[in-house]
């Protein structure tokens, strides 16, 4: 009796777990169950938002990216293949969106700089308007953020994935659409590029 109850419990539990996998929800959503897609949204929106925020550095931009990513995911659910994790597939969409968004931001920034008739050098991070940010740690953080934002999107994406979001290399490779070795190489290059941008500031501080 007890055994059958345990077995029954196990069966129902595994059944529920089976039903609740991303793949199962995707399948349901594909068949028109919008609620299943909303479950996927609830489950992964924070992950996607975190990455988008790191890439855009602005909450409203990040939210736009996340929304667009989920809209695209929904519209392209039929293209999702079960071989990849749903989050990997989703983050790949977000990476592409963020790259596009970064290009647009760079153009926007260039225009703003032109209008201001002067270059906004990220190194001059001592001029922080908000007094709260005058704390040394925050100043360094802002400087680093600016250095990160100044990186090309492909460098920025790997830094965010590896060094901020701390994703594993195989996962990164799947998101970036490259090999694990390729992902490692990209990380090395991106770190070097970031170091070249941040070194003068940190060097000044030390001296």
């Amino acid at each position, binding site marked *: 009796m007890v055994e059958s109850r345990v077995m029954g419990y196990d069966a129902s539990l595994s059944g529920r777990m089976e039903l609740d996998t991303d793949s199962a929800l995707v399948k349901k959503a594909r068949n028109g169950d919008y609620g299943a897609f909303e479950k996927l949204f609830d489950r992964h929106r924070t992950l996607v938002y975190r990455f988008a*925020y790191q890439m855009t550095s602005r*909450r409203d931009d990040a939210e736009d990216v996340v929304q*667009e990513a989920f809209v695209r995911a929904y*519209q392209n659910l039929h293209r999702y293949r079960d071989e990849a994790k749903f989050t990997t597939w989703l983050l790949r969409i977000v990476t592409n969106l963020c790259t596009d968004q970064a290009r647009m931001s760079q153009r926007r920034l260039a225009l703003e700089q032109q209008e201001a008739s002067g270059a906004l050098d990220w190194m001059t991070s001592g001029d922080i308007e908000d007094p709260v940010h005058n704390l040394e740690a925050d100043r360094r953080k802002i400087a*680093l953020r600016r250095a990160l934002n100044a990186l090309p999107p492909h460098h920025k994406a790997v830094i965010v994935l590896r*060094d901020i979001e701390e994703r594993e290399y195989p996962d990164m490779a799947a998101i970036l659409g490259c090999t694990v070795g390729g992902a*490692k190489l990209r990380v090395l290059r991106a770190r*070097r590029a970031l170091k070249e941008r941040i070194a003068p500031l940190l060097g000044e501080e030390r001296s």
Partner: protein
Amino acid sequence: MNGKFEEKLAQLAFGDLTPSEANRLELEADKDPEARRALMLYKDMREGLRSLADVPEDQFSKERLRDAILKQGLKPTPSRPLSNRSWLWMPVAACAIGFGLVFTRHMIEQGRMQTEVVLGPESLKTGPMFGVEKLIAFASKSVNLHQEFIGPMLTAARKPIVLASRHRTRHHLEPHELPHNLYVENATGEEGDMLFLGPDLTDVPADTTPARQAVVATTASTGPILLIDQDKDAQTGAQKATEVGSATNVLIGG
């Protein structure tokens, strides 16, 4: 400090090395002030990047997402417009062009096929009709065969004679396959009424069946029919050929 060493230092700072590798490299970096500075810089970078992990809280709602999806349509649609996927049309266009070329060529050749090459009755009467090495004939699906004896056939082979245009499936009759008696057969096939030149069907062994399917002419053909005689032209040395109106005029009673 070379680039490779710097890469190693970065890996060390970001924790990508094994403990033994890390220990060895730390000792190495201690001896080189520049390497030490680079290592410190990478470590600072790592700490700084980790401190960036905090993000402000989002203000998402399912309603907002639902509105956005509804705005673009609930049905899953291709993510990119067709114009951005022009590469997809390239193989399709190539196939279409290829098909068009083949079809056009086929149509042109169809026009050419109005002229059929047949063996003339004079040759059959006078013989030796099949003084050839191979009789190249068509394989054809035929029904309602009716046979008429035309004349004797010899098998002293020298040159091949092509009996038809190249669009039909051909069957190469070896001299030993050739029958001694030749018959003409009326048949109704897919291409209309047809005349077949072939052996006496009753005498032909089963393994020489292809010889029964030697198409000579299509009577439905509206174009001229060439009769190739065995005699050669005295001036040119080429095979003589005569144009006639239809196959019916040529073979029946030959």
